[in-house]
């Protein structure tokens, strides 16, 4: 067994496969945050007055807020004045109309990541709104979606072209003063995706965005807003990898989902940002606020996430179940290895009658990783016959890591049925031995067991993503067990 342990440790120590920096001329604002920076940023993006005012209000609130420290995370304090809040590729003024016009170096970046845009477009039939740092550089299938009345564009474009929609929904799910990181994002968000699916329309393809963080010392503040009108359906994919570097990078994104009556939104994430080196240096700090509102009756919001990257993950995709019979789901696989720390989970707020929610969380800890599930299930007084099922399983690989579960359950209605279960286990030597006997290598055995452990979550992912997620988990974990 010992040789396997060593072998496994070697795998676990593998260098980050996707670490590299692309040299593209950047237009960077000086570090620091003040109202002038926000005005500069807003002017650069030619934003309407209401948005600038909203940003400044968020900034005012942010100043009064304290960074939250309740999570089971330990990290060096972030100097918010040392970060530059604006970075965009220079070619912004002259945006490419098609992929042919895209900066070849950018395309090469995607090639290295194994996401050939064109191939995806042709083979997978996926419309890709790729975000390179802060500004979207390529949007495909726009016309096809346009015929159905679906708007899929960078949010900065939506702000200019559909200000009435943005004004109505921006901040309606995550208010500008929601929390420290959401307030910061509201003040300085640079770009992100905007999706609007009109009444009764079923979006015919998976919408997808690849995020990348590129410029050194540039915080990344994405803002995503997805609106599904009555009876609409949309599935949105978000995935990312990032280049290797030494300095901690701050990422504070906000995602808002709004589902009207009978609408369904499926939001899937594969996150593989740089987790830092073996000593935990570098790596992304990921402080994300994701929330969906099931505003109408019988609406449904489903979050699926595969979190394998980042040094620090602070992320709780939530659903507010306002409409009667609305449904919220959260499926998560979180991996913490090396010195990674993840504090992630969900909030299910039941307000409407006959609402139901499902939480399935799979945490994997290896090396010195610390993985925490933190979730809230709240059944309010008016939420008759609400139903929740939560399951949180942890898998520990090695004796230096930690797995923690902090569920909060608040019930104010006697007709509620709420169940929470959690278990913790390890990959047994007997399991590996059994596989080895049958000619399966230790590495494959671990991959098999881990994939089996995560199966319930993977099967919620769209097909292409499920394959990618399994591969990613395999690469990250390859034989971390002895």
């Amino acid at each position: 067994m010992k040789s396997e342990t060593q072998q496994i440790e070697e795998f676990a120590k593998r260098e980050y496969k996707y670490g590299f920096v692309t040299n593209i001329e950047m237009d960077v604002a000086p570090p620091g945050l003040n109202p002038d920076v926000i005005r500069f940023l807003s002017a650069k993006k030619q934003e309407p007055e209401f948005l600038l005012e909203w940003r400044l209000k968020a900034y005012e609130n942010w100043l009064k807020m304290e960074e939250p420290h309740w999570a089971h995370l330990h990290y060096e304090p972030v100097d918010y004045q040392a970060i530059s809040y604006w970075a965009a590729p220079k070619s912004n003024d002259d945006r490419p109309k098609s992929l042919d016009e895209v900066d070849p170096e950018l395309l090469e970046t995607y090639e290295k990541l194994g996401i050939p845009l064109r191939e995806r477009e042709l083979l997978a039939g996926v419309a890709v709104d790729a975000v390179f740092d802060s500004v979207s550089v390529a949007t495909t299938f726009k016309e096809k979606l346009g015929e159905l009345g679906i708007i899929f564009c960078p949010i900065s474009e939506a702000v200019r072209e559909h200000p009435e929609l943005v004004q109505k929904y921006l901040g309606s799910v995550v208010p500008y003063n929601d929390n420290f990181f959401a307030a910061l994002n509201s003040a300085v968000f640079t770009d992100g995706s905007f999706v609007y699916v009109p009444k009764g329309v079923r979006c015919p393809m998976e919408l997808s965005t690849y995020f990348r963080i590129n410029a050194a010392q540039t915080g990344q503040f994405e803002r995503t807003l997805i609106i599904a009108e009555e009876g609409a359906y949309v599935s949105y994919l978000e995935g990312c990898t990032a280049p290797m570097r030494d300095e901690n990078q701050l990422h504070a994104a906000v995602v808002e989902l709004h589902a009207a009556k009978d609408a369904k939104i499926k939001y899937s994430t594969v996150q593989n940002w740089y987790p830092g080196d073996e000593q935990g240096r570098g790596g992304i700090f990921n402080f994300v606020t994701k929330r969906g509102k099931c505003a109408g009756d019988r609406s449904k919001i489903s979050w699926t996430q595969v979190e394998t990257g980042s040094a620090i993950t602070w992320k709780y995709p939530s659903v507010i179940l306002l409409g009667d019979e609305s449904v919220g789901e959260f499926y998560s696989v979180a991996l913490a290895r090396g010195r990674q720390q993840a504090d992630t989970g969900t909030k299910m707020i039941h307000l409407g009658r006959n609402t139901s929610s499902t939480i399935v969380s799979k945490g994997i800890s290896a090396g010195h990783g610390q993985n925490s599930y933190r979730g809230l299930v709240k059944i309010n007084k008016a939420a008759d016959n609400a139903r929740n099922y939560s399951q949180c399983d942890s898998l520990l690989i090695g004796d230096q890591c930690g797995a923690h579960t902090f569920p909060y359950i608040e019930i104010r209605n006697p007709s509620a049925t709420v169940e929470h279960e959690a278990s913790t286990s390890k990959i047994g030597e007997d399991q590996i031995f059994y596989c080895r006997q049958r000619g399966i290598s230790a590495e494959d055995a671990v991959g098999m067991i881990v994939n089996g452990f995560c199966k319930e979550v993977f099967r919620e992912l769209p097909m292409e993503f499920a394959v990618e997620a399994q591969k990613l988990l395999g690469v990250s974990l390859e034989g971390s067990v002895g």
Partner: protein
Amino acid sequence: MKQATTIDLLERRWDGASAQRGAEASWLCGLREEAWAQFNQAGIPTTRHENWRATNIAPVFRRDYETAAIDALPCGRVHEELARLDLLGGTTVVFIDGRFAPECSSSMPEGIELLSGANALEADGLDRKLGQTALGIGFPFSALNSALFSDLLWLRVRSGVVATEPVTILHVTTASADLGRFSHPRTLLEIESGAKAAIAEYYLSLHDDDAVECTNAVTEVLLGRAAELQHLRSVLSGGFHFGRLAVDQAAESNYNNVSLTLSGKLVRNDLSCGLYGEGAHGELNGLVMVRDDQLVDNHTWIEHAQPECTSHELYKAILDDQARVVFNGRIHVHPGAQKTDAVQANRNLLLSGDAIVNTNPQLEIYADDVKCTHGATVGQLDEQAQFYLQARGLSRDQARALLVSAFAKEVLDHLPIKRLSDWASTKVDQWLARSASAIER
């Protein structure tokens, strides 16, 4: 304004006890001073503190607690009350307002030693035992008790002694509607290596529920190697109650606690069980049955500090009216505590639309070869079970009554001493009888 009054009272009491402290051993005086500083530094917890977020204790500090001493010990009243609660008989130790009342107590059987007052506080070795497990950041009331307790009940079961009959410890408050009491009972239970015992601790009031009363109790339990203790802890008074239980277990010891809370306006228990020796087994079980505007908050910690330890935790609650129940249980598996096997379950049954449950079952695990599970449920009676019983000829009301009773009494299965479990079972039935209409609904 009133809060200041209560704080003033506590400060007056601290100042008033300075002569007593001066006469005490220096280690004890030091412990009290450290505890007092800790209490002052922490302040009165508010709902902004994570461990107190669902429990607002401000009402505790809105009452006037008198400090006047009573002239004569009301032994007659105590016995009347015990008769009413079916607690007469057996070996009984009575503490009144935090002080030992020998006149009301019976003598100890062979092998069990009872120390109190100066006998206890000046005894050899106490400095290595008292305050070793109950203190720490996050327990301001435990610190307050350490600073202000006036008498210590030290019960010691000698090495190898097997006590067959349970010992009853009664903490009685004389508070009434006119005379307030803020008392700090302090208990040290020591079960030496190889000894076996059963102890039942009751907190009761001589007057009705309107008594102006706050009991701030601390019980420390030390279990020697392979020692065994069955421990029932029950709050029977109607006032405010802060209870801290800190258990320190040596290797192969076996500790079993059942905490039964049927009374109390506001009850907050902080119960921690430390498995500090290999192969120890600890159990924390609890049953909470509340109505009206009662609030009962149980916080539990199980520390798996050594390998091969097992723990079991079952907390159940039944709520009627506008009652609130909080459960917060943490299983902490320390690095190196391999082969840990920990089970935790919290189940809640709501009988009313105005009741509120907050539950927070937590796992914190730093070792890989462990088996830890926890689960929490909140809900109503199982419709299928009800149907099953009705199909066998029970009326709907009977079926529901049977299911609720069974739900509650599962906890009492963890109380192997028949005398104690019978007593608890009767109390549960009495409570259920009063909520019959809500159960039938």
